[in-house]
């Protein structure tokens, strides 16, 4: 049984009909590496990288060989089919998904190659690492290619699993295991939202296929649409580390750096943005206005949270992680704007994918060189030791802070512009937040740049945690090449993409709605650059001109302390969920043992006890037996007479 296709959706043909290979190749790679075990140690990394590169090649072929004016549906097999509920295992190849596919396989390929070098001191387990990466790529592709909310959910949890496995890569370390578990759990909270949204869709539209749901939502009541919109947003918050589910993402940096680059910067964490963009037929509805507002609020709050905390952290990767949080906040804010922002959200997502992946790979390169040292206070002056890393990183840095005509400039600029273009005070509030965020971003990124690469080399004379001296060196070619490619992308990507992407995406997410705020587009650009420059300047004034201590200053203002403590987000989680949960669990174990089971055992004991007491009435004296007989007889006779005469 197949589902009906809506207008503008055709059965896949040509290159698009081979799209299943996109998923199958990395999946096969993962399967071979996991099942093959030690036998594949020698060539596992090559297979792992090869499958993803092949998938990328196939994606390119598909991209050029397919007419993206239409949406292509590829039915693979009947997956779940029970009466009204019919779920294909099927793919949808359209402008939106192919964009993501290119990003995932492209950045994925680079990071696979990078990992060959990065993981070379863990040869024994390297093929397992590649298996997990392949698994991730496969799941991520399923997420973006699936043609129903359930296949999306499949990929959604699949990437969650890969993320769990990779965050917990150093499973001998408790903090890694805990971080992995935390990531999975907070994602699951979001997944509940996604799942509930799917249940609502099935109940009200009788289907979970994109085509059927989107065809049916048009005249759905406001309450329903808002509910679905908010539930999808909950899912997006979980996966994309948005407020209030952002806490897992910094912890996820416990994983190896390529993982942070691929999963926790470039691709997986942007799945929430994809979800909202994919659901644009729902969010674009006039009934969904309230839901969109909440999306925007979440995005704006997250921008600020990410930026503020990012300013205070001393951990290289965690600063980048909070940067990711806030940048995804921009994307969420953008897609929350509706038709005015979908395309710019995606645009920022792509450019961010490039420069943030590059930044992480640079961070990885530094840590690779510095015995995994991630404390920026113990770094410094590395630009001379690692020139390629330094320059590629700096390009990524410039792209991120929106340096004119680099990629971040185009994408972020558009978002700020669209936000300012909102009606009334909303425009000022969201636009203002976006601008403020840009300034803060420039501040903390400049701080990072100065502390890591510039200034004095504070690591001389120190020893790493495992007691070795630091001998920074430039990374091998397998690592530098991907960094260079990504840097090139960061520089050039924005300009090209901002030209073509919005139009390309039209068949999938609709026309871009022009906005006209109080400020002209050019003015917004200038303003943004100016604010970024101020942020960077302040950072230089604070960190660039004086020597920073190796030890973290403890006498700091409340604001810094709050930021260092993730704005007390973890404390809140701890106080609201973890500790009461622990108590509740302990209480329930007690109740189950003493209460429920105690009742059962109590009944048994009561019976036994009464038995023990009652048997004492069997005294062995014949006269007391006679008494009980006489008593019984009198009772029987009396009862008979009472029944008869009463």
């Amino acid at each position, binding site marked *: 049984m197949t589902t009906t296709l809506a207008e503008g959706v055709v059965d896949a043909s040509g290159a698009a009909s081979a799209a299943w290979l996109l998923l199958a190749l990395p999946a096969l790679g993962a399967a071979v590496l996991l099942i093959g075990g030690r036998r594949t140690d020698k060539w596992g990394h090559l297979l792992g990288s090869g499958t993803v590169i092949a998938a990328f090649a196939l994606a390119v072929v598909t991209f050029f060989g397919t007419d993206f004016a239409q949406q292509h549906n590829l039915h693979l097999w009947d997956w779940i089919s029970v009466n009204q509920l019919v779920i294909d295992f099927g793919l949808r190849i359209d402008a939106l998904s192919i964009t993501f596919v290119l990003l995932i396989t492209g950045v994925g390929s680079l990071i696979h190659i990078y990992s060959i070098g990065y993981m070379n001191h863990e040869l024994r387990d390297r093929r397992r690492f590649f298996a997990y990466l392949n698994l991730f790529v496969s799941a991520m592709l399923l997420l973006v290619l699936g043609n129903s909310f359930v296949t999306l959910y499949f990929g959604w949890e699949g990437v969650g699993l890969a993320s769990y496995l990779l965050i917990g890569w150093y499973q001998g370390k408790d903090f890694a295991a805990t971080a992995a578990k935390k990531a999975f759990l907070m994602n699951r909270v979001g997944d509940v939202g996604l799942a509930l949204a799917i249940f609502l869709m099935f109940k009200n539209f009788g289907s979970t296929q994109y085509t059927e749901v989107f065809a049916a939502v048009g005249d759905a009541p406001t309450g329903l649409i808002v509910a679905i919109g908010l539930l999808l947003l909950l899912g997006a918050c979980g996966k994309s580390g948005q407020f209030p589910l952002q806490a897992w993402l910094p912890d996820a940096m416990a994983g190896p750096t390529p993982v942070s680059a691929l999963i926790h910067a470039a691709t997986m964490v942007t799945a929430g943005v994809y979800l909202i963009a994919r659901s644009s037929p729902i969010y674009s509805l006039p009934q969904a206005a309230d839901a969109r507002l909440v999306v925007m609020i979440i995005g704006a709050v997250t921008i600020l949270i990410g930026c503020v905390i990012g300013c205070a952290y001393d951990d290289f990767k965690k600063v980048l992680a909070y940067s990711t949080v806030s940048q995804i906040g921009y994307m969420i804010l953008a897609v929350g704007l509706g038709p005015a922002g979908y395309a710019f959200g995606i645009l920022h997502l792509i450019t961010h994918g490039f420069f943030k992946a590059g930044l992480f790979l640079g961070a990885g390169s530094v840590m690779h060189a510095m015995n995994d040292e991630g404390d920026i206070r113990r770094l410094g002056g590395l630009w001379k030791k690692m020139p390629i890393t330094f320059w590629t990183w700096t390009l990524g840095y410039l792209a991120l802070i929106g340096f004119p005509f680099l990629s971040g400039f185009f994408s972020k600029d558009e978002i700020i512009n669209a936000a300012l273009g909102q009606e009334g005070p909303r425009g000022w509030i969201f636009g203002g937040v976006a601008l403020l965020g840009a300034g803060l971003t420039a501040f903390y990124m400049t701080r990072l740049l100065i502390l890591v690469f510039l200034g004095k080399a504070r690591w001389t004379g120190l020893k790493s945690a495992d007691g070795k001296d630091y001998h920074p060196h430039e990374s091998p070619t397998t690592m530098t090449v991907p960094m260079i490619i990504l840097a090139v992308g960061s520089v050039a990507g924005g300009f090209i993409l901002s030209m073509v992407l919005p139009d390309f995406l039209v068949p999938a997410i609709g026309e871009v709605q022009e906005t006209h705020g109080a400020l002209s587009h050019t003015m917004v650009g200038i303003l943004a650059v100016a604010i970024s420059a101020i942020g960077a300047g302040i950072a230089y004034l604070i960190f660039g001109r004086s020597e920073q201590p190796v030890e973290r200053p403890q006498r700091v203002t409340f604001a810094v302390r709050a930021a260092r403590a993730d704005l007390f987000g973890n404390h809140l989680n701890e106080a609201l969920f973890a500790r009461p949960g622990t108590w509740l669990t302990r209480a329930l174990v007690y109740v189950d043992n003493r209460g429920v089971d105690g009742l059962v055992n109590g009944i*048994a004991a009561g*019976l*036994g006890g*009464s*038995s*023990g007491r*009652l*048997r004492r009435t*069997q005294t*062995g004296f*014949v006269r*007391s*037996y*006679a008494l*009980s*007989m006489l*008593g*019984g*007889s009198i009772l*029987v*006779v009396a*009862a*008979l*007479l009472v*029944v*008869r*005469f009463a």
Partner: protein
Amino acid sequence: MSVMSSALFLAQGGGPLAPAPAPEFSIDPPALTAVWPVLIVLGAACVGVLFEAFLPRHQRWPAQVILSLLALAGAGVALATYLTDAPAGGETAIFDALVVDRPALFLWGTLLALALGSVLLIADRSVEPGGAFVATAAIRPGTVQDRAQVTATGMQTEVFPLTLFALGGMMIFCASNDLLTMFIALEVLSLPLYLMCGLARRRRLLSQEAAVKYFLLGAFASAFFLYGVALLYGYAGSVRLSEISAATAGSDRSDTLLFAGMGLLVVGLLFKASVGPFHTWTPDVYQGAPTPITAFMAACTKVAAFGGILRVLQVAFESTSWEWRGVLWGVAIVSMVIGAILGLTQTDVKRMIAYSSVAHAGFLLIGAIALTEKGLSATLFYLLTYGFTTLAAFGVVSLVRDGSGEATHLSQWAGLAKRSPLVAGVFTFILLALAGIPLTSGFVGKFVVFEAAIDDGMAPLVVVALIASAVAAFFYLRVIVLMYFSEPAADGPTVTVPGAFTTAAITLGVLVTLLLGLAPSFALDWAAGGVFAGR
């Protein structure tokens, strides 16, 4: 005072005393074909007494055993022969004192078969050299002679005729057509039992104590029974069951007589059936009596007593069931609860089975107060199944022994499965049957009784019964746990390899238990063969 008491007893008619009419007195040649089984059993008992008088000591045992077995076989043959052309509605015999109807025949058959098993147990001399009975009852316990008789091989062979007398009494008891016959039968079945209880070879103090208790309480209960008979005679002017039934429809005497009489009568019957709260003698006597006698009592007395209860309730009191059924509901509940709860903490196997029998009496009573054909046939079937299972149970108990005789304390049964898997397996099966696990006769018995009860609108009582079964299941399980899951005690008892007689008895019980669990249809059909004559 006089007015009041007069009102009490003679409310509806205290007229002047009428002169007694001359009774008709004629003797028809008694129709004996129907009662041959009873006559054979009682005749053999008399012959057995003569054997005791005239045979030399060493010949008595074989002669008695052969005589008893022949008598039982003969009675069985006579019963089978009569069955082929027995009138469907039953017939009366011996001046209408006995009524031989289908339920009576079923009960007789059951009694004969159970008695056969019991006699086999009684006759066994392999488990305890010389048999389970004292060599000479007159020897005082604790004396030199007593210690000598423990190892002697002789036994008091009067046990065999006593058994046959008791059996004859039981057969008459459940076929009595009037209450006087029933009273006489009650005494005929009881008096030998009192004696036999005191004849254990070992632990004679306990045995004698059991006898004294059983005797005193039995006589006490007989008095109640008899007073009930007298009051009913006063109410109905007759002790014939059918005439009491007729009188309940339209007697001019006070119902006080009826219900007081009935109550006392029923108490006497419930005592024999060891229904709680009239069960107090049961654990003590079961524990103290020689195990073969306990088996005989537990199996046959229960059958006879419930045969009597069924007949009395169904024939004489059916039309007043509305008044008394609630009371017997209560009695049944008390019995089930006492049996189930007190059984939980017993430490002696025989006492435990005694309490089990109290609980089972409660279940049986449920069937007995379902005054339908189904209730009758279900109770009869239950009696059949219970009799054989409990017979086998005591048979097995007699096998587990240590230096001082039977090892009945439960702690001595720990790890029995390791010492003797077969005995443990058989006993487990028996316990499961007592607990009412499917594929044993115990389950089918419970099922048919509960089915009849629900059909007769007693669903709540059935639920109580089911819960009581679940509670009771614990103490059966406890024994299984001990036998299988516990480590055997270092100086634990040994399991005697039984001789042919005990083996045959246990096999009989177990096979019937299994057969009636797997394919109960034929026995269900027999039990449903007909109703009491005179209903």
